[in-house]
């Protein structure tokens, strides 16, 4: 009667339970290993995604600095892109029209160097201002002084817009 299985039924049940437990344990360990691998994969993907997201955001900010509004245009924020382009363009037009001082690199004092940093913030529009102001600056009148401030404001505002585009590209509230 017990030729095939030399154990009694009760002993066979215990043995079967042990086998099941072993199988379940092995399955658990495989599952946990798979989960660990998946977690590692996800972590790698997340890190890679963060790097690419950061690089993309820097590229967007650089584009926004080079051409006012381009950073937001790349993010398909059309209204803001147009507003920034027109605002910076209008400020540069006013500043150059009022014959404000467009600072050049290598200024003699700190004010000239800071002025250059502010003006250069307008990106490509800095060269537009220089091209428009072919007669040179005239700060002997109030117009020229205001024009200098308009040009500096255009640059600083464009830097602010580029920073805004960077934050938006990183997915932060902007």
């Amino acid at each position, binding site marked *: 009667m017990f030729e095939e299985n030399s154990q009694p039924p009760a002993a066979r049940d215990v043995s079967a339970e042990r086998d099941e437990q072993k199988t379940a344990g092995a399955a658990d360990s495989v599952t946990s290993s798979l989960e660990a691998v998946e977690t590692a994969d996800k972590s790698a993907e997340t890190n890679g995604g963060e790097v690419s997201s950061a690089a993309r955001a820097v590229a967007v900010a650089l584009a926004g600095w080079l051409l006012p509004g381009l950073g937001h245009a790349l993010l398909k924020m059309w*209204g*803001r892109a147009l*507003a*920034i382009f027109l*605002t910076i363009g*209008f*400020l540069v037009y*006013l500043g*150059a*029209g*009022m*014959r404000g001082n467009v600072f050049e690199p290598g200024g003699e004092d700190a004010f000239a160097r800071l002025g250059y940093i502010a003006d250069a913030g307008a990106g490509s529009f800095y060269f537009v201002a220089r091209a*428009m*102001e*072919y007669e040179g600056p005239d700060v002997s009148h*109030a*117009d020229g002084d*205001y024009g200098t*401030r*308009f040009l500096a*404001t255009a640059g600083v*505002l464009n830097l*602010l*817009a580029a920073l*805004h585009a960077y934050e938006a590209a990183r997915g932060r509230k902007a």
Partner: protein
Amino acid sequence: MVPLHFSHFQSLLLFALVISLAFGTLGRRKPVERVKYAAWSFAMFVLVGIALGWLMYPFSK
């Protein structure tokens, strides 16, 4: 390029207008909020500018 000439007050108004519009566009998302913020910013620019002008007036003579 034709040179542009503005009075002090005109320059102040132009500056306040352009910067307020930019601040409104960058600082807020909803159109109504943008208009409110731009109007508030414009009013503050002009009022504070005039106030500072009056504060400096005694030292101009």
